[in-house]
């Protein structure tokens, strides 16, 4: 490229900006719109599903209010499916599906209102704030994820480098995951508590328990993904195990590592929430879920669920962003 042929810097900048805008527009059409479309379809289906799901209560309320319903007898209605009830009482079922206090399936707007009320309308430090509970859960999740990911990577390295570890650890790592965590969690908490450890650490320990496994599996697969030809090349250089690891296995495993980190961060969140159930329903999304279930507050359960899902999505997106950054640096994104 000669200087003379190059366009002036101003035009170049303008062209770049235009291109970038166009690219952003394309990205919008490519990624955001389909997501919105799918979400819209889901929500539409959700609203529709509310009618039969909540029909029993709708009809009960209607009957209480003196409206004629079929069948008229409560005992006959028992055991009828929601769909049948909705078909026989379409008007009542549709009209009363979205305003119930304890719906079987809350409508999206009810959840939205609850989430809004619990985030925007209370101080973020109040136990009534979802942000507060989100932070409680998030902090344990991040700590557990950090531990779990580190442990997972270390184990995977050991498994790939040492045959003993491959033979002994892998099997038992699998076994550790088949142990019902919800049964173990309370015991872990009681045991740790009895040796004086409480607070965030027991929760993080359980989060780490769930999150190390996907990392081990993915990372082992990734570290073993280089094919024979690629390994042969390094053998011809007489590369040490360490060098083979650093220059071939590690970069080769990066895509696998990130795929598993995404699963692991979601698993860490689930682990934290599980751990929050027996810790005495004190705080965090787990406590919200539990308390909601004890007091029949379905809307509250769902809003905690939605909040947890959003948090998970954010965490996964964060890992995804890191992935794009790293892979782009490595030239692996085309």
């Amino acid at each position, binding site marked *: 490229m000669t200087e003379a042929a190059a366009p002036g810097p101003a035009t170049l900048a303008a062209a770049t900006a235009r291109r970038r805008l166009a690219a952003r527009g394309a990205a919008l059409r490519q990624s955001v719109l389909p997501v919105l479309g799918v979400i819209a379809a889901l929500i539409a289906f959700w609203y529709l599903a509310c009618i039969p799901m909540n029909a029993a209560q709708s009809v009960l309320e209607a009957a209480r209010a003196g409206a004629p319903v079929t069948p008229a007898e409560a005992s006959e209605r028992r055991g009828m499916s929601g769909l049948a009830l909705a078909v026989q009482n379409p008007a009542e079922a549709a009209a009363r599906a979205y305003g119930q206090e304890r719906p079987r399936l809350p409508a999206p707007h009810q959840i939205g209102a609850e989430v809004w009320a619990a985030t925007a309308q209370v101080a973020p430090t109040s136990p009534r704030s979802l942000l507060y509970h989100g932070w409680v859960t998030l902090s344990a999740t991040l700590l557990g994820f950090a531990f779990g990911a580190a442990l997972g990577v270390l184990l995977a390295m050991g498994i790939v480098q040492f045959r003993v570890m491959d033979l002994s650890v892998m099997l038992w790592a699998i076994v550790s995951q088949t142990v019902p965590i919800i049964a173990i969690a309370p015991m872990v908490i009681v045991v740790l508590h009895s040796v004086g450890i409480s607070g965030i650490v027991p929760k993080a320990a359980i989060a780490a328990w769930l999150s190390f496994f996907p990392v081990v599996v993915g990372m082992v697969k990734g570290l073993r993904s280089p094919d024979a030809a690629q390994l042969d090349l390094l*053998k011809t*250089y*007489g590369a040490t195990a360490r*060098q083979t690891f650093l220059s071939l296995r590690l970069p080769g495993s990066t895509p696998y590592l990130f795929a598993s980190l995404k699963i692991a961060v979601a698993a860490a969140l689930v682990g934290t929430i599980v751990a929050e159930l027996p810790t005495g329903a004190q705080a965090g999304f787990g406590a919200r879920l539990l308390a909601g279930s004890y007091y029949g507050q379905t809307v509250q359960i769902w809003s905690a669920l939605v909040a947890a899902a959003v948090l998970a999505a954010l965490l996964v997106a964060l890992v995804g962003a890191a992935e794009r950054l790293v892979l782009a640096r490595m*030239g692996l994104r085309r």
Partner: protein
Amino acid sequence: MSGAVVEAEGLGLTFATGDGPVHALKDVSLSIGKGEFVSFIGPSGCGKTTFLRCVAGLEAPTSGSLRVNGMSADNARRARAYGYVFQAAGLYPWRTIGGNIALPLEIMKYPAAERQRRVRETLALVDLAGFENKYPWQLSGGMQQRASIARALGFDADLLLMDEPFGALDEIVRDRLNEELLALWARTGKTMLFVTHSIPEAVYLSTRIVVMSPRPGRISDVIESPLPKERPLEIRDSSAFIEIAHRVREGLRAGMEAA
């Protein structure tokens, strides 16, 4: 015995596959001295690659003995005795072309400045200057192959194992690289094991030509070249050259018919 860089005695290798064993090499005996340029030629599937892999310590022979630089092939490998150009380019997709060529240099702990210098030089040698920052998939097949040659030439190995390095190159580039290779060899006194399918190439480059025949892979003929060390491209029109080429062709044909 001393001075023999590669010393094979009754070498054999049998692959066990799902439907029966495949005899890739059988009773191969060969001694290659320091500074020799030995070409291997033979029909596809006759075991040329397998032999080179044995020398490189990448495949374990199932019978016979093999010494490289007086050590076992595996120890020679660990001592970084050789450079290897594989039949397929095998560049690492996460490294740029420059990064791929720097890879062995990094592993052998060449200082950074030296690495840069060598990458630049070998890239120029294979005519890829300017492609340093491209990724492998952005290169044509022949360009990838040249990058892999550059990768093996970048560091100082006394023994070079090259498996059809110029197979995907056009005649002109190939001629140029043949000349370069010969010059390099003359200058450095490296020992060369070179697999090719081109008879003229084999004759032009080699001090000795090993003709192989297939199933099981054996040495069917070994032809010493009387050509001088100094070889301009025009030597290919000389009668001596044509005569050797003819012998190689005959050897190949005989091996084929016997099989």
